[in-house]
């Protein structure tokens, strides 16, 4: 379970960043996330929907202990991300669209490396690796260097790396961006599989079809503010527009007008 309470993240801007914000911008900081609170439950897919720059990745990075919140709290499986960062990371898997693998290592070496870093004994790593490699079809290329793999093959290795320590909580940060249909499908299957295994899943995306396919709970984030948080079925039932895209644009525009 993930519990987020009154989460804020403010970034100090460099001179160059201030210039890029335009002449209308006043101040030295920018609020990436403002007073965000939500809860992700095990066995459900919590979908964080928002356009680029909305604050989705910042929120997920705070959950994953990569960034520290400016204020507010996050607990993952009962552990505070600031006080018990290591305990949080032990229980967490993190997958992004960029496969982020080491070209000169083989899948076997990569997975063993991350298994060891997650504190797993070698015997357990071997057993788990065997299962995952068989499940994902990595066996045929487990001992070849990653450098020359196709995106699909790399994505499979990336999934195995995320799941090697069988995490209770899995964070997916725009996991299908840049992937072809087949590679994206394997990610969708993984997310569903995580729900089936009663894991807590948080998925950030700006792809409406993914929301429609996967979301149990939905949060919409726009310019750092949480503008919707509830059941996806409720959201769909109360839509004023005919499509999810149009409804999202309507809510975002309303929020834009409110903060202007």
């Amino acid at each position: 379970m993930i519990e987020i309470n009154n989460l804020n993240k403010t970034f100090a801007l460099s001179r160059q960043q201030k210039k890029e914000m335009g002449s209308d911008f006043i101040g030295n900081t920018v609020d990436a996330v403002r007073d965000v609170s939500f809860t992700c439950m095990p066995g459900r897919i919590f979908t964080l929907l928002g356009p680029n720059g909305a604050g989705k990745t910042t929120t997920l990075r705070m959950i994953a202990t990569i960034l520290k919140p400016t204020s507010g709290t996050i607990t993952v499986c009962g552990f505070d991300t600031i006080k018990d960062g290591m305990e949080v990371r032990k229980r967490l898997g993190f997958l992004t669209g960029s496969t982020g693998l080491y070209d000169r290592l083989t899948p076997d070496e990569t997975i063993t490396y991350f298994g060891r870093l997650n504190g797993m004994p070698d015997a357990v790593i071997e057993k788990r690796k065997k299962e995952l490699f068989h499940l994902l079809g990595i066996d045929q290329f487990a001992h070849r260097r990653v450098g020359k793999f196709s995106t699909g093959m790399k994505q499979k290795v990336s999934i195995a790396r995320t799941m090697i320590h069988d995490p209770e909580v899995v964070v997916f940060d725009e996991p299908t961006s840049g992937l072809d249909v087949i590679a994206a499908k394997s990610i969708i299957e993984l997310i569903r599989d995580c729900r089936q295994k009663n894991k807590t899943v948080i998925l950030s995306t700006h792809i409406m079809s993914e929301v429609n396919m996967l979301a149990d709970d939905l949060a919409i984030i726009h310019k750092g503010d949480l503008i919707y948080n509830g059941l996806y079925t409720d959201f769909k039932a109360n839509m004023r527009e005919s499509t999810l895209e149009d409804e999202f644009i309507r809510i975002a525009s309303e929020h834009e007008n409110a903060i202007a």
Partner: protein
Amino acid sequence: MKNIITIFKKELRDITRERRTLMIMIVIPLVVYPAIFTIISKYMASEAEKAGEKTLRIGIVQNGNGNDFTAFLQQMPNTEIRSIADTVTGKDLILSDSLDAAYFFPDGYDAGIAKLEQTGFDYFYTSTNNEFEVGIIQNINGAYKRSLTSRKLTELSMNQTILEPAKDNARNLASAREQLGSIIGGIIPYFFIIFCMVGCMYPAIDLAAGEKERGSLETLLVSSASRIEIYIGKLMTVALSGFVSAMASIAGLILAAKMMGGDAGDDQSLMQITSLLNGIIEARSILLMLLILLPLNIFFAAITLMLSIYAKTFKEAQSMITPLMIFIVFPSIIGMLPGVTLNVSTALIPILNVSLGAKEIISGTAQAGPLIVTYLALFLYAGLALTLSVRFFNNEKNILRG
């Protein structure tokens, strides 16, 4: 600790699988010394051989003067006497490399010599000639003047010793190693320092900025390893790489000593260089050098890793780290200059202290006091660089910059 070892082992495996890193880290430092010393020795031997074999072409202006010199010159081996019309022709022939020297003797020269008067002559040469040839010409002139003096003294029935009533017998107490060490000893630490830096540079770029660019840093940060464990694992790899480069250059030095030892024969200068190299490869010298290399590598590794962490991409890291070479090469070159020695003040200047300290260790002239200050200063700078670098790595702004 377990995580540090895991990271260290993985990073080591990763970088050693890249040919370019291996070339820079091991192959180049290993071959550079044998290559340099082989080239020097071959050059010296071939120049000496050329000069020894060559017949010196000497022109004498045909004006009926200088018969005394011509007679002297005829007794000299490897000389060819040519008659030339005037000094202008002589100069032209020298400049067109048809002559090595031209002599002009004024009217009354021979008569003056006969009357024991002081006379003089002009000779022309070009200093851009091979230095061995210039040396031979000067030797001929010296020998001729000594023969004139000797003749004059004999004619005056005076003892030859009158010109040198007391002989000073100089005894240089500096060993061949010390003498040569002060001259070429500076080149050796120069390369050590460069190799330490180059050895650290590429792994540092790959391990931080490269990891950022590949997108694998985020995944690593989400693992159970703490940030400091990740940092130390990476630092150890970078420092080891610099250390291996320096060690490879020491191995190259030993190789050079062995090669030169075999080739030296009777050649004095080659024997001197060989004795210098053999001196360096004494256990004590190597141990003292290793003590310098350890903090130097940590210092370089911490700085290169810090900049690499800050950089967004591999390319940006390269453009940030490469200019650092100026700050390393410059003090290293100052350390090579003769007369610049290691004292308590120079021992505090980073890089220069390494250059001077290593130079004195090589020459066998290192004094305990300044050397201890060098070690202390190096460990202090390494500690400062390390602290700064860790702070950089712990700063989320740097680590996620991009």
